[in-house]
């Protein structure tokens, strides 16, 4: 499968398929079903400085071709992730994992990233400045170029591993934010996080989601994500990870043509636990069908000429 290898911030991936944070836990549920070492890597559950329960339930709502979640970064906190989750993960996943980090202050991000940076299992730090489900922080860092750059700078100063900044689509100009992160030292950009959405229950006439709004994801957002990946990858020189509604090998190829160096798969994992395995297995056939020998050759191909 040499044709499927891609390079992500100087680390080689066997293929570009990466389960997205929050849809793959710490991998074990999926490792019960298949050998998760077939993945390029995966981005683990968003980790914060302190343990978090997240938001009240209901925090899931179905939509046409997608879903809304308002989980709100439930996680055991960085210390338990390092002492409990990573040793368990080591038993089922021998590749480098992507550590996904969230915070409520610049200091939070730096603190959590510094700890995870020291873990040999961690290959990349994916810094989420875009979670729509946390009040008083989180997404606000990703909605202005200045604050996104401030987080990037603080994390870069105290870490050694590639830092990928995960951006929100809920902004007026994602390109300026991506550029600010690149200038602040980001080694890569990943996008898009979920789109802020809501549903109303016609029987109760009240919002389905307990905190009213949540992040919308699934196949319905794919064209929006693709467009933003195209715009951002055209404007920055660092690798871009494309995500948003990716559900098939064809979607992976389309994302790469738009400019993605690797592709994350999110909501699809929740509907079909074998989604990533199926996509990876379908890639060679899809590449053949579209005359692609090496996936690396097609990155940004839609832009050229």
């Amino acid at each position: 499968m040499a044709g499927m290898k891609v390079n992500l911030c100087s680390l080689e991936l066997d293929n570009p398929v990466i389960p997205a944070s929050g849809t793959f836990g710490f991998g074990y549920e999926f490792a019960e079903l298949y050998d998760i070492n077939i993945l390029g890597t995966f981005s683990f559950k968003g980790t914060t400085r302190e343990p978090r329960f997240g938001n009240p339930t209901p925090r899931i709502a179905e939509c046409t071709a997608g879903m809304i979640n308002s989980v709100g970064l439930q996680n055991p906190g960085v210390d338990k992730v390092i002492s409990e989750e990573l040793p368990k993960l080591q038993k089922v996943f021998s590749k480098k994992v992507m550590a996904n980090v969230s915070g409520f202050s610049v200091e939070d991000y730096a603190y959590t990233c510094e700890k995870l940076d020291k873990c040999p299992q961690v290959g990349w730090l994916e810094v989420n400045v875009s979670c729509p489900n946390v009040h008083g922080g989180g997404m606000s860092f990703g909605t202005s170029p200045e604050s996104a750059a401030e987080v990037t700078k603080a994390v870069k100063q105290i870490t050694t591993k590639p830092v990928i900044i995960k951006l929100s689509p809920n902004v007026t100009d994602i390109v300026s934010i991506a550029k600010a992160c690149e200038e602040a030292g980001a080694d890569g950009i990943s996008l898009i996080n979920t789109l802020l959405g809501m549903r109303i229950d016609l029987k109760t006439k009240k919002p389905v989601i307990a905190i009213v709004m949540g992040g919308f994801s699934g196949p319905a957002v794919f064209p929006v994500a693709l467009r933003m990946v195209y715009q951002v990858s055209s404007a920055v020189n660092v690798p871009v990870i494309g995500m948003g509604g990716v559900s098939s090998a064809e979607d992976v190829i389309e994302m790469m043509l738009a400019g993605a160096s690797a592709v994350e798969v999110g909501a699809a994992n929740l509907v079909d636990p074998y989604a990533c395995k199926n996509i990876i297995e379908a890639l060679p056939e899809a590449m053949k069908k579209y005359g692609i020998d090496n996936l690396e050759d097609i990155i940004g191909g839609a832009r050229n000429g």
Partner: protein
Amino acid sequence: MKQGLFEVLKNKRLTDSVYEMTLAGDTSAITAPGQFVNIRLDGFYLRRPISVCDCEEGKLTIVYKTVGKGTEYLAAAKTGDKFDVLTGLGNGYDLALSGSSALLIGGGVGVPPLYLLAKRLISEGKSVKVILGFNTASEVFYEEEFKALGASVTVTTADGTKGVKGFVTAAMDCGCSYFYTCGPEPMLKAVYAASKTSGQFSFEERMGCGFGACMGCSCKTVTGYKRICKDGPVLRKEEILWQE
């Protein structure tokens, strides 16, 4: 957990809005009563989690209520239709804690998972009493099925049109050593308050994946955060923390 293709053998209407569907497929991942399956439906993004009512090798029975477009789609399924089903989800009821006489308390569509539980408890030689609670006589289902297993059955209806008038709590004083319950949350709270013995409660929550990956259905318990889909849906009485 296993993913498999299941073929509809029968889809029978039991009441106005409750259906019993039997399906053929690999049931080997289903290990305990009170577990659920998650069914993929064409045209709907999320799967539909539905409790296991009965299960034997190669055959699965679910009893479900039409509450929206997804379950209406399921109700329209015909013999021979095939569904992608995730099986063996959730912890299920722990039979070992029951003692010699168990009380099973079901309300509405909380009744189905108690059927396989009753069957298993009786096969272990335990005495089983069942309270089936409904709003009105026309909604009652599975009374005869439980009797056929050898359980002693009391039906309660809120309007008194059948059996004991009132809620399930009106019939709970029966000297059993342990209880198992499933039903709407207000009923579970009432059972919790009225119960004199220990027991197990099966909960419902809106789920994303149904197998523990998304954290969509988490709840707080005495023993920490639990995912209803993976660490539940069954919680022991001692670990429940009621919200608000």
